[in-house]
């Protein structure tokens, strides 16, 4: 029997786990996939929105501005890549200038700090590569960019280090009420919990339906992206949004936390929550819109296209509440954009809801005694000075072998990922933790080396190696006359 079971290991579930791990509680996080951060957290723009978009007075507005304010310190504590680069919504023409003024006023009402409307020369001096046809922009200095997967993984790792459990490949198929709480049915067993938190993202409506008649519906919205070589990363210096309007949905152009240029997304409603395909039409549309803003983007330096599915709903706001008429059950559902920016605030907001329905929270002695208990440090060779690198290799020679040449990731970092509290078991899991394979050669060089390291560490034959989900095998067997035959 645990005190709290969290269903869903995206950035929202992780933020709840992170918020709970300081208290003297037993908590388990259940994830249906073979790693955390595989839903909407996996593929999105990575923007820490400032908070001028949501309607004033909404929960979204409040949590966005609050989460945005908490993000820098959180990322510092967790050693997550974050850059407070600010954002510009750029306008072309008087109609869009008016939209920007509306956004400005909304932002001021929402309490967004530092907002200002910049004129044409102002915005061109900030972003010289913008089209000279720009007429003005909304400048939001508090916006930023973050690595969403790493934020999720880091919170989970700290949660585990403080006594929490993350159980992967554990889809909750049935939620049964019991005298003292809940029984969650998993493919391989059951978990009993006094309280349950539903942070199942795209599936939060289905998980909700296990305990109560559905009163909202997830409307999956696909967003397609281009990810360009780091060489293009300097094309813009801040997050650039095109102006939203009635007839066209905006796109954004920004550097990612890793230094690439990301361009996207589309916004298409798709019936299938797993349909992360890209389409020729979708990509062409993004390209066209982006080039209207910055015509010098070199799309020939594209290194990957991908899609993410956002958990949009038929509601205007986030749905974060103790589910009415259901005991000991809280949900954070339909966390659409700006969900990532809001995440640092959502965890604590959910804990408040749990308290309201009776969960008692007493800080752990171990956390009181060791403030560092809630922080994390990782080795990132490519971000170090030569002096730091020299010392690092002396401490462990594995950091002296570079396995991923594009992102300069060392064998030591890959081993760290495999041996971490939330161990990487697939090539993509290593990519999310270390950036190895994320670069311009897309794993062509490091793939074989990392596969060999994984096989050795996990003591599995290479043929059992998978890229991502179960079934995404990499090898079909040994070659003729391979080591098995000799």
């Amino acid at each position, binding site marked *: 029997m645990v005190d709290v079971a969290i269903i869903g290991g995206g950035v929202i579930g992780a933020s709840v786990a992170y918020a709970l791990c300081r208290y003297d509680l037993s908590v388990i996080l259940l994830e249906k996939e073979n790693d955390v951060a595989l839903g909407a957290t996996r593929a999105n723009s990575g923007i820490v929105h400032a908070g001028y978009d949501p309607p004033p007075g909404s929960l979204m507005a409040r949590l966005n501005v609050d989460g945005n304010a908490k993000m820098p310190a959180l990322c510092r504590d967790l050693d997550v890549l974050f850059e407070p680069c600010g954002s510009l919504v750029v306008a072309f023409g008087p109609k869009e200038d008016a939209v920007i003024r509306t956004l400005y006023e909304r932002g001021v009402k929402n309490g967004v700090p530092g907002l200002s409307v910049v004129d044409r020369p102002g915005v061109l001096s900030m972003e010289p590569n913008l089209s000279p046809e720009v007429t003005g922009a909304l400048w939001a200095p508090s916006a930023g960019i973050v690595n969403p997967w790493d934020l999720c993984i880091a919170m989970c790792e700290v949660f585990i280090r403080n006594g929490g459990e993350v159980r992967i490949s554990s889809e909750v198929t049935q939620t049964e009420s019991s005298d003292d709480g809940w029984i969650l049915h998993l493919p391989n067993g059951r978990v009993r919990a006094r309280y349950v938190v539903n942070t199942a993202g795209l599936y939060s409506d289905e998980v909700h339906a296990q305990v109560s008649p559905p009163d909202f519906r997830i409307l999956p919205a696909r967003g397609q992206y281009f990810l360009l070589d780091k060489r293009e990363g300097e094309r813009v210096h801040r997050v650039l949004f095109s102006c939203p309007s009635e007839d066209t949905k905006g796109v954004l152009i920004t550097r990612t936390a890793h230094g690439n240029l990301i361009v996207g997304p589309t916004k298409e409603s798709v019936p299938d929550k797993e349909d992360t395909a890209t389409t020729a039409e979708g990509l062409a549309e993004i390209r066209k819109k982006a080039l209207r803003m910055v015509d010098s983007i070199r799309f020939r330096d594209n290194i990957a296209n991908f899609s993410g599915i956002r958990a949009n709903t038929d509601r205007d706001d986030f749905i974060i509440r103790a589910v009415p008429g259901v005991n000991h059950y809280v949900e954070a559902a339909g966390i659409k954009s700006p969900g990532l920016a809001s995440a640092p605030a959502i965890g604590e907001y959910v804990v408040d809801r749990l308290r309201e329905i009776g969960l008692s929270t007493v800080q752990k002695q171990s956390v009181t005694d060791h403030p560092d208990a809630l922080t994390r440090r990782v080795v990132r060779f490519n971000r170090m000075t030569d002096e730091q690198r020299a010392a690092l290799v002396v401490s462990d020679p594995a950091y002296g072998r570079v396995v991923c040449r594009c992102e*300069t990731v060392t064998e030591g970092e890959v081993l760290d990922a495999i041996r971490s509290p939330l161990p990487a078991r697939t090539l993509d899991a290593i990519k999310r933790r270390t950036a190895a394979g994320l670069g311009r050669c897309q794993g062509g060089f490091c793939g074989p080396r990392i596969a060999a390291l994984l096989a050795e560490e996990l003591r599995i034959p290479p043929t059992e190696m998978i890229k991502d989900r179960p079934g995404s095998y990499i090898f079909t*067997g040994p070659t003729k006359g391979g080591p098995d035959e000799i």
Partner: protein
Amino acid sequence: MKSDLVIIGAGPAGLAAAAQAYKEGVRDILLLERDNEPGGILNQCIHNGFGLHIYKEELTGPEYAERAFRELDETSVRFMPDTMVLSVSPDRRISAVSRTEGLIRIEAGSVILAMGCRERTRGAISIPGDRPSGILTAGAAQRYVNIEGCMVGRRVVLLGSGDIGLIMARRMTLEGARVLACVELMPFSGGLTRNIVQCLQDYDIPLLLSHTITGIRGRKRLEAVTVSKVDESLRPIPGTETELDCDTLLLSVGLIPENELSRGAGVELDPRTGGPTVTDDTQTSVPGIFACGNVLHVHDLVDNVTLEARKAGRAAARFLFSATREDIAETKDVRSSKKSPDPSARPVLRLTSDENILYTVPQAFSSELSDQTVDIYFRVKKILRDCDILLVDPDGTVLRRVYREYMTPGEMEKLTLSSSMLTARSARSLTLTIRPGEETSHD
């Protein structure tokens, strides 16, 4: 530490450059290799066909690498494997890292860039669709199959007809896989004719010219690809789609010189080759930094890499010795030479080319042509038959004219000139131009 000559990369280019520089009298040579053995990509090229020009016999890739490495026996070249170069500065300061040596800083008298190239990926051509496993570049597949001993699939489609792709089509077939088709966007193959014959035709693998892949299906492992015909502007033609069930898609869609370090060193790059702009002695725009092999431009034959690398080794030696002579009064130390020849002081003869030519290497000639002859390497953009290749100066004088019956983009062309012909010119530029007799798409 200090070194007269640092060579980055111990593939065929780095190995030949090192051997040549030693022959020219350079003794303090450091050869840095990120892998644990020399040879570079040759180690995974277990097929034969290497060395016909250089060693006068047909070798496999590993055999060629071994020959090239053995040329360093009895020399003072210091080979450092498992060493990754992290940066090169314009004043030739190198930082590198290795397990055994830790972080290494080297002040180099001269540098030869020989890092090779990398493969273009699915992203570079934005193939839409799902993102399953089973989609990989031909070179990565080659490593898995030939070095790791792991089969990457059973039913294979190949996109692109570059040489590595063609070789892998045969290799996969010999390993028991079924290669359903080689799909090529262009109306001609980008590979060597001999590979089309020996790797596709000999195994009845269809070559679908003017086709491309417009869809990928499979959420876990690849299940199928959509193949479409393309029009003359290379756009997919709606209605021509066919789906091929396969578990593997190999990509052979181009190679890009690996110039991240060159860029950091401030070396000027040629957008056509993707490699440094060089003069005939392989010197880049940064004095004392030379480039050879696939980091300079993508070669068709390793023999040509070796020849180019020897030129680089010679030129680096010359650079070191001339720097020494100039500085001898002040210091005897080659490395502390601050008096690098000023590139603006070197009058150069620019080489331009017409629209039939994809690129030329070199892009310019230095005024001090020290070899008897100079070679111009170039590739054409499309298949050309019965044409004259002309080297002309601005007033229209034809310096050299040669006839070619057939030229294809997959094969590198070479034009050899005598140096005296160039040194006598007063013009600042020359143009390489082709007068085709007749052109066809493909037969």
